[in-house]
């Protein structure tokens, strides 16, 4: 548009120039003519003002002349003649169509009012930027005045060094040393010290590179190794680890052998170390076979015979600790048997029966001895000895055999629990093989231990039947020891697994009892019953029969594997309700089962009534006008005479059944009560809690106490507190403030109503911007 108008101007100038030249010439001519008569016409005509009707923008026109008033159509008249400037013509036509007069300005006071309103609004908005700061300060737990911003910039070492001036002689000396040294960076612009630079210069690049490569390789290898170890550690396969462990052990073994040959000193050291390990292992009370110690010891066994024994001991200990206590009972019974005097061998046998692992080596020895005897004795003797071993024992007859009998039976019992001990098993198997040879041909003895046991029992039965007489004799001879025999039989019975067998055993018991019938004392049946109980108990233990009975025997190995069934333990039958509604009803009823609301309320009310009523005052004195002495009571008459009756107070809630009206409202207290919640608190609870909490240091730790009594405002003596300054406003609000200054600039320009309105709009816009920037 501007360009076009320029063009238009230049064109207009061109067209007018010719006319101008003509006019000038014409004027000059006129002047020349007038000069001819020698008189100047006037000075005005000196100015070349065109007085023609045509108006030019390049010349002044006399304003005073009403005729020459500029009209728009005159100015743009030339446009009609031209065919150019289409847009300009269009615009002009639009303007001519919509011409309006400007509205009259408002009266001065109205204008001022609007100005004031807008200015006030702007200022208010401006001031609101302080709102967050003010609120924050009001809420602050503690305000430290003056409120200057602390300088949090970190002081660097360089800055400190620059500030540092050596003063004391020591500092001077140190400074001198430092500044003289080549190992200190003197010039800050350089990174290396002089010494470093020299070293760098002296170093061969090739060598340095090689060295670096080496180091890198080393580091890489290390990291590979590390990674590998980590990966291996994560592998869950037991087999893998087992193999790994075995390999390690093997390596150790090999190492040990080589050590023994090559370096006896370190070998000795190793051995002492192992000794220490052993001690530690003993202390640890673990006594397990699979430990590192045990494995090491196995390797070590090659060099020391004791080593194997030690492991063995340890295992025994472990068994001893973890063994079930059941075995003690038989011994109890035996101790019950009164007269029985344990001889040396017999005693050891009893101890063995309690804990056979303790005397395993002895057993073996005795077994061997026994085998020797066995060859000499006949089969019948074996049978006898097996059953009435204790009798024999007491008699001191056939000592070795009796031990065999006692021990084998108990051994078998325990072997069931422990299969790991192969050595003794093998030994026992061996013995049984020998036994098989020596026994009667019709008895079939198998290597299977259970079967052996069964056979034994059968054998016993048979021997019972056949040698009843003999047994009876034996029993008669030792009347009390019979009980112990029974105990032995019982304990053997406990091993039987089939009910039928059990019954047969019971039968056998009965037989024995028949045999013992005359000789046994009164308490015998009782004891037998008890034994039976025990027997049953054992059976139940074996067959997992669910007969509820308190079992005091605790197997240490099964301590944590007991399955507790809560269902069975609950004695009450569950309430079974079919529908949900009923269920709810039941629930509600249960919930309010213990609440008797009405009764409670009644009690409360009666309490309130009682406490509200004034009491009668009895002013009677004891002894006045009466006989003196101890145990006096005031006579009724006197009491009645001197009692001041309390007036009956009518309560407001007297006839209201379900209301208690408290009439003890204290107006004196009300004066001291808080009417409104103070400023920082939001609700009553909060305020009450804060009031209730004790403040003193008697009830609070020092830190809390300090926190509680912290003053709200801290000022320092002699420090001038300046008013808050603009820097206190946080950053996000400064954007808002900038917006304000812009609007201020626009504000100064406006003078009429229209602009006032527009300014309000801009204000609103600024508000919007402010919000946006806040986000």
């Amino acid at each position, binding site marked *: 548009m501007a360009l076009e108008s320029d063009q238009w101007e230049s064109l207009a100038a061109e067209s007018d120039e010719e006319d101008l030249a003509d006019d000038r010439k014409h004027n000059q001519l006129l002047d020349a003519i007038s000069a001819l008569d020698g008189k100047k016409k006037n000075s005005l005509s000196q100015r070349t003002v065109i007085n023609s009707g045509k108006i030019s923008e390049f010349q002044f026109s006399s304003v005073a002349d009403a005729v020459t008033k500029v009209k728009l159509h005159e100015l743009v008249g030339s446009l009609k003649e031209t065919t150019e400037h289409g847009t300009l013509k269009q615009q002009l036509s639009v303007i001519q169509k919509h011409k309006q007069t400007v509205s009259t300005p408002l009266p001065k006071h109205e204008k001022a009012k609007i100005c004031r309103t807008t200015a006030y609004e702007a*200022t208010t908005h401006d001031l609101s930027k302080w709102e967050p700061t003010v609120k924050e300060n009001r809420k602050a737990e503690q305000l430290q005045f003056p409120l200057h911003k602390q300088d949090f910039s970190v002081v660097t070492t360089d800055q400190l060094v620059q500030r540092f001036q050596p003063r004391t002689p020591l500092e001077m000396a140190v400074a001198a040393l430092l500044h003289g040294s080549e190992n200190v960076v003197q010039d800050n612009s350089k990174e290396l010290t002089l010494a470093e630079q020299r070293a760098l210069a002296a170093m061969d690049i090739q060598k340095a590179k090689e060295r670096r490569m080496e180091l890198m390789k080393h580091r890489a290898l290390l990291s590979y190794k590390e990674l590998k170890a980590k990966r291996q550690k994560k592998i869950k396969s037991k087999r893998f680890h087992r193999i790994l462990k075995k390999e390690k052990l093997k390596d150790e073994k090999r190492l040990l052998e080589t050590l023994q040959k090559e370096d006896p000193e370190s070998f000795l050291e190793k051995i002492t170390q192992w000794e220490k390990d052993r001690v530690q292992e003993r202390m640890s009370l673990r006594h397990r076979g699979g430990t590192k110690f045990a494995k090491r010891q196995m390797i070590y066994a090659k060099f020391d015979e004791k080593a194997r024994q030690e492991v063995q001991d340890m295992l025994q200990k472990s068994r001893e600790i973890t063994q079930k206590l059941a075995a003690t009972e038989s011994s109890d019974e035996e101790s019950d048997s009164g007269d029985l005097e344990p001889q040396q061998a017999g005693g050891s046998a009893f101890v063995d029966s309690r804990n056979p692992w303790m005397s395993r080596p002895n057993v073996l020895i005795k077994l061997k001895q026994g085998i020797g005897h066995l060859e000499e004795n006949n089969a019948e003797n074996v049978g006898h000895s097996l059953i009435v071993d204790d009798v024999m024992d007491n008699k001191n007859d056939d000592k070795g055999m009796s031990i065999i009998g006692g021990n084998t039976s108990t051994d078998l019992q325990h072997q069931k629990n422990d299969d790991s001990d192969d050595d003794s098993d093998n030994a026992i198997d061996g013995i049984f093989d020998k036994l098989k040879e020596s026994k009667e041909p019709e008895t079939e003895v198998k290597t299977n231990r259970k079967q052996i046991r069964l056979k034994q029992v059968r054998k016993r039965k048979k021997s019972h039947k056949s040698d009843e007489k003999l047994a009876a004799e034996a029993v008669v001879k030792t009347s009390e020891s019979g009980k112990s025999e029974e105990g032995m039989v019982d304990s053997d019975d406990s091993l039987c697994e089939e009910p039928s067998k059990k019954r047969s055993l019971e039968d056998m018991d009965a037989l024995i009892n028949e045999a013992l019938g005359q000789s046994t004392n009164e308490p015998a049946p009782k004891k037998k019953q008890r034994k039976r109980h025990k027997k049953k108990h054992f059976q139940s233990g074996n067959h997992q029969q669910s007969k509820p009975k308190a079992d005091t025997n605790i197997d240490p190995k099964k301590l944590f594997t007991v399955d507790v069934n809560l269902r069975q333990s609950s004695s009450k039958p569950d309430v079974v309700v079919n529908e949900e509604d009923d269920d709810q009803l039941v629930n509600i009823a249960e919930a309010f089962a213990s609440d008797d609301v009405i009764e409670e309320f009644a009690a409360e009310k009666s309490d309130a009534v009682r406490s509200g009523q004034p009491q009668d005052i009895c002013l009677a004195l004891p002894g006045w006008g009466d006989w003196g002495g101890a145990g006096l009571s005031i006579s009724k008459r006197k009491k009645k005479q001197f009692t001041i009756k309390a007036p009956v107070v009518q309560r407001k809630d007297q006839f209201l059944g379900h209301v208690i009206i408290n009439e003890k409202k204290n107006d004196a207290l009300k004066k001291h009560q808080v009417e409104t919640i103070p400023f920082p608190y939001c609700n009553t609870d909060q305020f009450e809690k804060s009031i209730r909490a004790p403040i*003193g240091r008697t009830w609070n730790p020092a830190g809390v106490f300090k926190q509680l009594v912290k003053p709200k405002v801290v000022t320092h003596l002699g420090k001038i507190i300046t008013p808050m300054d603009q820097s206190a406003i946080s950053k996000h609000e400064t954007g808002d403030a900038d917006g304000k200054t812009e609007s201020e600039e626009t504000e100064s320009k406006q003078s009429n109503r229209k602009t006032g309105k527009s300014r309000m709009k801009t204000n609103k816009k600024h508000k919007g911007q402010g919000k946006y920037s806040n986000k």
Partner: protein
Amino acid sequence: MKVKVLSRNPDNYLRETKRDIHKVPRNYDPTLHPFEAPREYIRALNATKLERVFAKPFIGSLDGHRDGVNCLAKHPHQLSTLVSGSYDGEVKVWDLTRRECISSIQAHDGFVQGLCAVPDGSSFLTCGTDKTVKQWSINEEGRINPEPVVTLLGKTVFQQIDHSLGHNSFATCGEQVDIWEVDRAEPVRSFTWGVDTVHAIKFNPIETHILAGCAVDRSILLYDMRGSAPLRKVILKLKSNALAWNPMEAFIFTVANEDYNLYTFDMRKLSMPLNIHKDHISAVLDVDYSPTGKEFVSGSFDKTLRIFPYDKGHSREVYHTKRMQRVSVVKWSLDNKYLLSGSMEMNIRVWKARASEKLGI
């Protein structure tokens, strides 16, 4: 094998230095302290009583004026320097630590109506009933140059004067509110609203272009120095005598009113005062905020000073002496520790802001 031994942390029973208090192990279980509420009550009561017992607020008086003290001004940088003007036109500079007058000049004919310090601390301005505003230079010791640096002649009597903190301009009030700059003989801007006299004017210390005044037509007027027109007017039931801005909260100001009360306003919401502070039993003549903005002091026609929390309706303290007459002017010192009051019986009094505080005086 792990051997368990008794172990205690020495931090629990040893103090770090000899000056620390002894560490007393205590059991804070509330069940062991059944009487905590009554004990606390007793302690609180004792503390309050002791505070009252030790309340000795009056520090001293500065006498030397030969007429009632009309105006006071704090030095912006020196806590010990105070300037006062009296009804006989005399201006005195006081050293508060020594409680003596450093210098005095006859500043005006008639009253010294207004007095204010220039923020840079090098000079102060006075205005009087002789229609002049004078600027006096003051050195660090508090000596006034007897010749005024600038004397500005006005057309009408000036009622009060105040200097803006952020701008190099000051305002006087009288028949109109004028904004002056020291190097110009004519006011740079004049505000009028109606024909009433404005008798108190104060610049906002935070938004330093905003100022407020109290007019005789019972109104409080707000101005923006940058605009051409006043901002707003609030008319109260009775005339307001003085006005003070909160130095920490830009939009809060308090006026001292003839109706014995003080009113705290939020400038953004003038339809209702934030708080009405009642306790004076006569017209309140002057008010000044503490520099922390948490309290203000007021002087009254009832010959007392009162200290009000800015958000409470009643005063926390009332100061008076037998000889003090009506208090025309009060100031709160810039370190928040002292109060200064000028009264009609020609004395300036120095008080503690906290009556029982130990200040070593």
